[in-house]
């Protein structure tokens, strides 16, 4: 049986292919949990780290982009979440996007390797998939090989959920249906990171696994 030690911080990772909306989700999710400012802790490859503090708007402006591979290193946001009467600290780590192919830019590859390390150590894996791109034969194709491998790898984590993102787009409804068929047995929550919709279910999920 699992006896989680009081106060043991849980690491929750936001992971997925590039451009599925990981950073926007992490920021908006943190905000919906009541974070008034976003304190990012970046870990560089040497093991050191630094902190930057943003307002939620500032963070979105600075960190979110529709260009792929905007996030090049994992960035952690510490948020508080209420579980019953207790407030617990949860570290939500936003990670660089994973691609299905080997990227020619070394900084992108380094980012992917760093993301993998975070996934390895995480307790909770929030796996974002772009529901509007399901079945499209492009580099953004969802799910890609890396999505299947993420699911395989994360299945035995204490908590694993697939977040079908971009449900505000019209193509996503059909995409969600296909995702449910492709990942039978996995827990899938439809969300829109942009509109902050579907977050209640995600919060409930995180809370259950605290």
């Amino acid at each position: 049986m699992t006896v989680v030690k009081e106060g043991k911080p849980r690491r929750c990772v936001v992971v997925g292919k590039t451009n599925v909306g990981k950073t926007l989700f992490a920021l908006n999710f943190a905000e919906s949990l009541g974070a008034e400012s976003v304190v990012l802790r970046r870990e560089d490859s040497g093991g050191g780290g630094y902190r930057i503090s943003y307002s939620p708007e500032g963070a979105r402006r600075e960190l979110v982009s529709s260009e792929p591979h905007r996030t090049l290193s994992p960035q952690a946001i510490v948020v508080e979440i209420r579980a019953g009467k207790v407030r617990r600290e949860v570290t939500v780590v936003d990670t660089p996007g994973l691609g299905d192919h080997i990227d020619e830019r070394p900084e992108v590859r380094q980012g992917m390797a760093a993301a993998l390390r975070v996934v390895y150590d995480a307790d909770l894996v929030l796996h974002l998939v772009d529901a509007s791109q399901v079945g499209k034969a492009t580099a953004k194709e969802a799910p890609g090989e890396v999505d299947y491998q993420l699911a395989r790898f994360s299945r035995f984590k204490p908590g694993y959920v697939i977040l079908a993102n971009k449900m505000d787009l019209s193509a996503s409804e059909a995409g969600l249906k296909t995702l449910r068929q492709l990942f039978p047995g996995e827990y899938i929550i439809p969300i829109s990171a942009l509109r902050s919709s579907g977050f209640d279910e995600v919060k409930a999920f995180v809370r259950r696994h605290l």
Partner: protein
Amino acid sequence: MDGQGAAPRPDRDLRLDDVACLIEQGKITAARGLLMLEAPAMDTGRAAVAPADSSGEIDQVLQELDSLIGLGKVKRLVRGIKAFIEVQRLRSLEHLAAEPLVLHMVFKGNPGTGKTTVARILGKVFKEMGVLQKGHLCEVERADLVGEYIGHTAQKTRDQIKRALGGILFIDEAYSLARGGEKDFGKEAIDTLVKAMEDHKDDLVVILAGYLREMEYFLRTNPGLKSRFPIHIEFPDFTLEELLKIAEMMLQKREYVTATEAAEALAAHLRSRLELGEENAGNARLVRNLIERAVRLQAVRLTGRGAPDRGPFTRKDLMLIVRDDILAAVAEDEEAGE
């Protein structure tokens, strides 16, 4: 356990570092890296899969194999494959050169000779031995792989491969991929398949199945394929004795018995078919169909209109298959065959 599950294990960092390094150097994709990593042991509250503790399971699977009638050569081959995997594993632990585990196979034989059944069992063997993640069997044929317009085929084939990842892709009547000549999309399916076999070396076993002669011709005309499928298994037709044993076992499982004359009638029918040299005479599926018909016709005899001895039935009545049931089943079967 007290929540220390995530604590680093001594071998853990090394493995993770190696994989991370390969990704940074651009040697492997992120997906491949994930595949190389075992998830660290953590308290999940769920039952974790323990591959090391599966010796009991594998015995059970092998028992299932042994319970099949006939197929002596096939059984020996499956055991041989199992031994090979074990030894390669042990060798790699001793840092001896280990042969890569290439387990793609060709199954040659007539329909109803046990190809699918054996493939399904092999999937379980591979799963228990940790060669494949899931060990499920994904059965496809030409129509599942080949599309109707340019580009369609590759997509369809890739979809099926995705479904089969972690298990076995079983392509029935695989030789039909080569029909239709140069312009046919079957060739595209083969090319996509070959590429997938490279990409998913560690997570996919492909079995090509079909008639002996057609498969040999298919492999001869696609020499590139032949070298990728090192294991060939021939499934001979069942003999009369084997077919009768299969029938007996099927009835036993269903808790029926045959009257002596009924067994004789069945034997006579099967013998005449074999002597006539019918193409599918040595076919277990045929026997199964006959038995299923006989079981149904027994019920008709017992309860049908004009049944002379309508109830009450004894336990024995309900179990007994008589000669007339077999003859009626044969007649019905021949009718259906035409």
